C-alpha cells in the first residue's frame, strides 16, 4: 500500500498556495489599515502644529472654543483606531509607535486644556484614565464604557486614556507624578480616584 506522491505533492502545493494567498491578502489589509492610521497621524501632526499656533494666538483668542473642536475630533478618532490596531496587532512595532505618538498628543492636548482653563476660567473638566490589560483589570472594559457614557452626558469632559503598563517616558512621568499604582485609576481635575466609578459618580465628582 503506497501513497501517490504526485497527488500528495499537489495537495500540499495547493494548501501552501492557499496560505500564501491568505497571508498576502492579510498583509495588504493590515498595511492599508496602518496606512489609514498613519494618514490620520499626519493629519493630527498638522493639527498639532495648530497647537503651537493656538498658543501663539492665546493672548488674543485662546478662549475661542472653535479653535480646538477639530483637534478634539481627530484625537478621538485617532485614539479609537490605535486602540483597535493595538488589540488586533499588538506585536507590530508600528502600532506601538503610533500608540506612543497618540499618548504624546493626548498629553499635549491635556496641557493646552489646562492652560485654557487657567486663562479662560474653568470651562473643561479633565480626566486622566489609567487602565490595565484585560487579564489584570476586569473592570477596565466597563470603566472605559462608563467614561464614554459620562462624556456623552457631559460634553465638556476631556478624557485622556493611558496604559498603566506603558514604558513611554511621558506616560511614565504622569504615572510617577500622580503616584498611580493600580488600575483603573482616574485623575479627575487633578484629584486621584482609585477603583471603578460609574458615569453618575464620575459626573458627581466633577
Amino acid at each position, binding site marked *: *500500500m*503506497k*501513497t501517490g506522491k504526485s*497527488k*500528495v505533492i*499537489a*495537495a*500540499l502545493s*495547493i*494548501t501552501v498556495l*492557499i*496560505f500564501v*494567498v*491568505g*497571508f498576502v*491578502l*492579510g498583509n*495588504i*489589509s*493590515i498595511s492599508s*489599515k496602518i496606512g*489609514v492610521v498613519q494618514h490620520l497621524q499626519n493629519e493630527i501632526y498638522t493639527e498639532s502644529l495648530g497647537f503651537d499656533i493656538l498658543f501663539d494666538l492665546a493672548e488674543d483668542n485662546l478662549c475661542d472654543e472653535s479653535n480646538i473642536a477639530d483637534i478634539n475630533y481627530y484625537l478621538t478618532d485617532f485614539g*479609537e*483606531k490605535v486602540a*483597535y490596531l493595538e488589540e*488586533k496587532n499588538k506585536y507590530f512595532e508600528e502600532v506601538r509607535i503610533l500608540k506612543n505618538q497618540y499618548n504624546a498628543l493626548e498629553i499635549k492636548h491635556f496641557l493646552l486644556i489646562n492652560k485654557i482653563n487657567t486663562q479662560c476660567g474653568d470651562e473643561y473638566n479633565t480626566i486622566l484614565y489609567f487602565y490595565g490589560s*484585560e487579564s489584570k483589570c*476586569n*473592570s477596565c*472594559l*466597563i470603566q472605559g*464604557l*462608563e467614561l*464614554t*457614557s459620562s462624556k456623552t452626558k457631559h460634553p465638556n469632559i476631556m478624557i485622556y486614556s493611558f496604559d498603566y503598563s506603558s514604558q513611554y517616558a511621558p506616560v511614565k512621568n504622569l504615572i510617577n507624578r500622580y503616584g498611580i499604582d493600580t488600575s483603573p485609576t482616574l485623575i479627575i481635575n487633578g484629584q486621584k480616584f482609585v477603583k*471603578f466609578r*460609574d458615569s453618575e459618580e464620575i459626573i458627581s465628582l466633577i
Partner: protein
Amino acid sequence: MPSLILIYASLFISTFTGVLFLLTFFENINKLGNPRIRKYPSVCIVIPAHNEEPNIASTIESALAIDYPKNKLEIYVVENGGSKDKTYAIAKKYRKRGVKVISLKKGGKGNAMNYVIKKTKCEIFITMDADTYADRDVLKKMLGYFNDKEVMAVAPTLKSKNNETLSQKIQSIEYLVGAFLRKVYHMLNSVYVTPGAFTAYRKSFFDEYGGFDTKNITEDIEMTLRIQSKRYKIANVINASVYTITPTKMNELFWQRIRWYLGYIESAIQYKNVLFSTKYGYLGTIIGPTAIASIIYMLYLFFIMIGEAGKILVSIAYAGSMGLNPLILLQQIKLSPFYYSFSVVGFIAVLAIMMSIVMFFMARKYSSDKSDYKIGYLGFSVIYIFMFAVWWLGAIYYKLLGSELRFGGVVWRNSLINNFKLARHN
C-alpha cells in the same frame, strides 16, 4: 505565540487533508460505477437483536425484500441476552418464510454473529442491525466489489432513517458527510471504520483470522482495522443506501457516541502500528494521524469558543454586579468598516466551510439523496463542534477514570484507572 503556531499548524493540516480528499474524489469521479457481480456468491444476513420489539419485524421484512437470488440468500435473526420484550416471539413468526431464528442466552452483538459464523458456510457474511433498513438493490450494488479477491469487506452508505428531531437532522448531515469521506477513504485504500449497522464481509477472512472480538465494544471498528492490518482491501459503495434509526434525544446520542469513541480509542491503541505507520500507505501516513489531529483541533477550537463566551459572560456579570445595564457592552461594537479586517484564520475557515459544502453536495448527488437538509445543515454548522467536543471529552474521561458502563448486553470496565487498580490488586 505558541497558541498561534498551533492554530496555523492545525489549519494547515486540516486544509491539506480537505484538499487531498477533494482531489482524490474528483480524480476518481468517473470510476464511481460499481462492478457487476461475476458469479453470485452465497450470502447470509445476520440480524442480532436484543429488546428490538418495535423494529425487528420491519428489519426482517426489509432483509426479505432485498433483490438477490433466494437460493443464495440466508437470513438469520439471533435474539441474544434474553430480551424482555417480544423480539423473539415476533422473529419466530418469520420461520415459515425461511428466516432462521435463534435465541442465545449470552448477550452481545459479537457473540451473536460469532455463533452464526461457526454455523454457516455462506461465502459472504452480512451484519445487519435490528433497527436498520436496506434498499432493495443494495446487495447487487455492493457484492461486485468481492470480484477482487483482496477485498474483505464492503460497506454501503449509511443514512439516518428518521429526521424528525434536531438531533436526528444533525446526524443526517453528519452521516452524509461521512459517506463522502468513506468513499474517499476507499479510493485511498484507507477505510478504518465500516458501519456496524450493515457491512458485508468475506467469510473466509473470519475462518482464517477469527470472528468478532466480543470484548471490544465496537467490534466493527476492530474488525475493519484487523482487515487493514492484514493488508486486505475494504470497499465503500456510495450509491448503495442503508437506513438506520438514529437516536432521537441528545442524551441517547451522547451514550451512543461514548461507546463509539471509547471503541475507537481502544481499537486505535490496539492497531497503532497500522494507523500511525508509513508502512500502511495513506492510512498510516495521512488518514490515521490527521484523524487524531482533527480531534485535537476541534477540542482546541471548542475551548477557544468556550473561553470567548466566558469572557462575554464575565463582562455581563460584572456589568450586572455594578448595577449597570449589560446592553452598555453593545457600545463596543464598531460599525465603521475600518474595524473589520481580513483575517487569515477567517479566510481559511471560510475555505474549509466551502470544502465541506462541496463534500456534502457530492455525497448527496452520488448517493442519490433527496432529503431536505436546511435545518439540519444550520444546526450542524452551529452546534456540531460543541456536540463533537462534548462526546470526545466524555469518552476521554471514561477511558481515564470511568468505572463501569453497560452497552446493550456488554459491560465495559476497561478504563485506565480500573486497569491500574487491577494491576495493583494482582
